[in-house]
Structure formats: C-alpha cells, structure tokens
C-alpha cells in the first residue's frame, strides 16, 4: 500500500515531516494536584497527578527519594473497534512502566524523600502515538502540580514507510508494519530518556528517523513551554498582590 503519495502527501494529507495538530490544556480534573489534557491529532489523553503525599503502603517507602507510581488505562471507547480489555493487561502494564521510568528520570525525587507521587493517564482516544501523548500529558500535569523537575520530558514518534521517514505516525501508519520509533527527550539537558523501536532499519535510516523524532520532540517542547508559561503568568496576575 502507498502511504506517501507521489506528491509527497500522507494519507491524512500531511507532509512527511509534519506533525499532527497538538493541543494541551491544564487543570481538567478538579480534585487532582495537577492535571492536563493532551491531544495529538485524534489521540486524546488525560493525565492526573496526585502528590507528593504520604506513602500509602509503608513497605514501599523509600528513605532517600520519592516513590513514583504510574497507571495507564485505556477507555473502552478509545480504539476504533471496541475492545473489552481486562484492566492491567500486559500492554498497559508495559506502558505504565515506560511512562514511570521516563518521568522518574526527570522528577527530582531526592527532594521529596518518603513521599509518593501518583501519575494516572487515561487514554480517551487512541490513534497512534499514545505513548508519546501520555508522556507529554504527564509532563504538563507534573508541572501543574508544582513538582520540581530537571527538565520537561517531551515525546514524539517517527517511522519509516515507503522509504520515507515520517513524523508522528497515526494508527494506520503505525500498523502498516514499518518501523516505529518512539522517542522521549529532555530538551534542555539534551538527553534521550525513552527510545523504543519495533522493526528493523539500517543504521543510516535509523539515524535519520531518530533525528526526525528529536525535531518532533523539540517542537512539542516549545509548545508545552508556551502553554506552561502562559498558565503561570495567568495564575500570577489573577492572584494579584
């Protein structure tokens, strides 16, 4: 099948290097310490952060750093074909772990010893790139909760189809069988914190695809920073003196 037309357009009309429309909104869950909604095209994710708070299960308490926990859930209606998946299947467990490790790398956990931070991500619509959307949403939610972080982790995926590197795959492109590289970076520190790929690629192509994903992450970072800065300014001027 042809995923990139001879004119250089993808199935949804994007250019190969073009990202889908992204949108972030802060403060969507009233009772959480921090929360955010993040959309990448049709992929829509809510993240809620509770904490830092007292560790609920004393045996898990860490004496030198905060305990970070994460749970990823997909709504029944999130996928194109409705699927009834049991909670905590292998895929969700794996993604929960990936998100937890990625966020743990940027949270300054040593500043909050003997406490617990819970990150809950809920997928409302899945259309490819849910991992990336979850990480971006979690970053926004953590920043909203005022949790100190080294940097904002942002994530984006890129793939390789019809001998073209493509940025930010949607579901159809993702399931086309080509490589799918999901990347998470800390833009300021210039470090990669998440890297996953599920097909074979030559080293040179991989380099190109990864470079493309890095550009994507940076674009997401620029957007997220704008949202956060605007939000901070608003909070400050509304509060007054």
């Amino acid at each position, binding site marked *: 099948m042809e995923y990139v037309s001879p004119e250089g357009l993808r199935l949804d009309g994007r250019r190969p290097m073009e990202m889908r429309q992204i949108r972030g909104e802060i403060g969507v*869950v009233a009772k959480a310490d921090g929360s955010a909604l993040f959309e990448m095209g049709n992929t829509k994710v809510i993240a809620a952060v509770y904490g830092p708070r007292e560790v609920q299960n004393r045996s898990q308490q860490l004496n030198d750093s905060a305990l970070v926990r994460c749970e990823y*859930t997909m*709504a029944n209606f999130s996928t194109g074909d409705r699927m009834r998946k049991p909670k905590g299947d292998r895929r969700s467990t794996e993604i929960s772990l990936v998100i937890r490790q990625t966020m743990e790398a940027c949270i300054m956990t040593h500043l909050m010893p003997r406490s617990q931070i819970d990150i809950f991500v809920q997928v409302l619509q899945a259309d490819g790139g849910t991992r990336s959307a979850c990480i971006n949403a979690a970053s926004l939610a953590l920043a909203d909760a005022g949790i100190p972080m080294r940097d904002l982790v942002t994530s984006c995926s890129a793939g390789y189809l019809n001998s073209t590197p493509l940025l930010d795959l949607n579901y159809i492109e993702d399931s086309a069988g080509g490589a799918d590289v999901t990347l998470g970076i800390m833009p300021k520190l210039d470090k990669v914190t998440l890297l996953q790929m599920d097909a074979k690629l030559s080293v040179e192509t991989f380099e190109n695809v990864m470079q493309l994903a890095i550009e994507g992450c940076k674009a997401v970072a620029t957007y997220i920073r704008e949202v956060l800065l605007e939000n901070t300014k608003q909070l400050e001027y509304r509060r007054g003196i």
Partner: protein
Amino acid sequence: MVGLSIGEKHFIQGGIAQDLRSDGRKRLTTRPIYVETGVISQANGSARVRMGATDVIASVKAELGRPNALQPDKGKVVVNVDCSPTAAPMFEGRGGEELSAELSVALQCCLLGGKSGSGAGIDLSSLVVVEGKICWDLYIDGLVVSSDGNLLDALGAAIKAALSNTGIPKVNVAAGASGDEQPEVDVSDEEFLQFDTSRVPVIVTLTKVGRHYIVDATSEEESQMSSAVSISINRQGHICGLTKRGGAGLDPSIILDMISVAKTVSEQLINTLDSHIAAAEAGEEES
C-alpha cells in the same frame, strides 16, 4: 471514602433539614449542568456531562450483529461503566471495579428494562435491520473522569446526550437472500439515521439524609445518606426503572412520595438537558 468530623456531619444534616445545603442549594435544586457532545470522534455518538466537580463521558458505538434467537425483532444494547483512576487514587488497579459494576447494573436496569427488553427506555426494535438476522448492537460506555457525587444521574444524562448525538449508518440489504443465508449488507458511510431519543429516560437519584431527601448530592452529602432511590423517568412521565441503594429501610409510602417528587424533578431535568443538548449540537456544527 469521605471522612467528615462530627461537626461537619452535623452541619450537613442540619442543612438538609433546614432546606439550605452547604453550597446554598435547596433540597431539590440541582447543580448547573454542562453538556458537550461529539467529544469522541471515533464513536458513533458521545457526550461529556459535568455537574460541579463530577465529570463523565459517555460514548455509543454501533456494530452489526445477530439478534438473540429468543428476540428476533430486537437489537442489543450493552452498558458498561469504568471509573478512571484520574478521578481518585482509590480507583487505581481493581479499586474501581465494585463501583463500576454497581453503576453499570443500575444503568442497565434504568435504561434497558427487563430480560425481555420490553418497556426499555431505549427502543430496541428500532435497531433491527433484518428480523432474526441482522441488528445493530449498541455498546454504551461510560467513563468517570472526575467524581463528586451523583455519578448515576450524570451518567444517565451523558448517555441520553450521547444517544441524541448518535448517527447510525444507513444499511442497504441486498435483496434475494432467503432462508438461513446471512444477507449481504452495505453499510453507508454517508447517510446516517438519527437515533430517536425522545423516549430515553433521565435518571433522578433521591438521596435520603435524616428525614429528608435531596437531589444531586455531592460526595460529602452522599457519605451521610441512609439510602438512595434512583428512578428513571421519561418525558411521558413513565417510570422506566428503579433501584434502591444503601442499607437503611424505607417506608413504602415514602418511596411513593419520592417517586412523585422525582417526576417533577425529572421534568425540569429533561427540559434543561434537551436545551443543553440542542445548544451543544448547534455549537458543534458551528465549529
């Protein structure tokens, strides 16, 4: 769930007795309700309903299936509710399962009628494409994103809004198939049939605290309830289903009294909901 001190409990109970609740409402005043439709683009219909800090999403997906052999002239509807851990950390893992099951069953009984499917709030016979062979299966999924009491009513309202947002594709059945053969169908992706929701009921939950009962309880008020009766009523004023929760016993005459109160409340609720749905649909078309 919600821990309250004796003074706070006393205050809440007193407020209900004096007809002035903690947020200034009277016993039968509801919180303002916000409706947004078409929030899930992949579904046939969807809606998000907010009442105070309660926030729920309902979606409707239609799939072609075979009718049940016992009821060849009826489609199938499945209602399922999930509580997202974003709403409260206690819903993490399997923590929300009990509440989810309770809500699913209550909704099923309020909207779908008995096993025979007769008297259901949702008209099941309109879902049949070819009698005995093809029908639409409606999967109604609810998701609790944020919770501050009165989840059942909010879910009921969201489902009603989602159903009125639902377009079921028009199906052309190839003629000629006879006997046991499964006829060939052609699902149109342009023409949609609007689902008739005029008879879909709304749910009104009356929560009994002390000697009085209230509508649209917050979670603090729910923690003080002795029992609650959820009544689903449609526009015609017919009761489509009823569930009672909570441990304390109720006097039969009180139940009848509650039903008549629920009827008046439901009229207002249906009217506000309808106007909100219409406004939401209009807003959606604009954007």
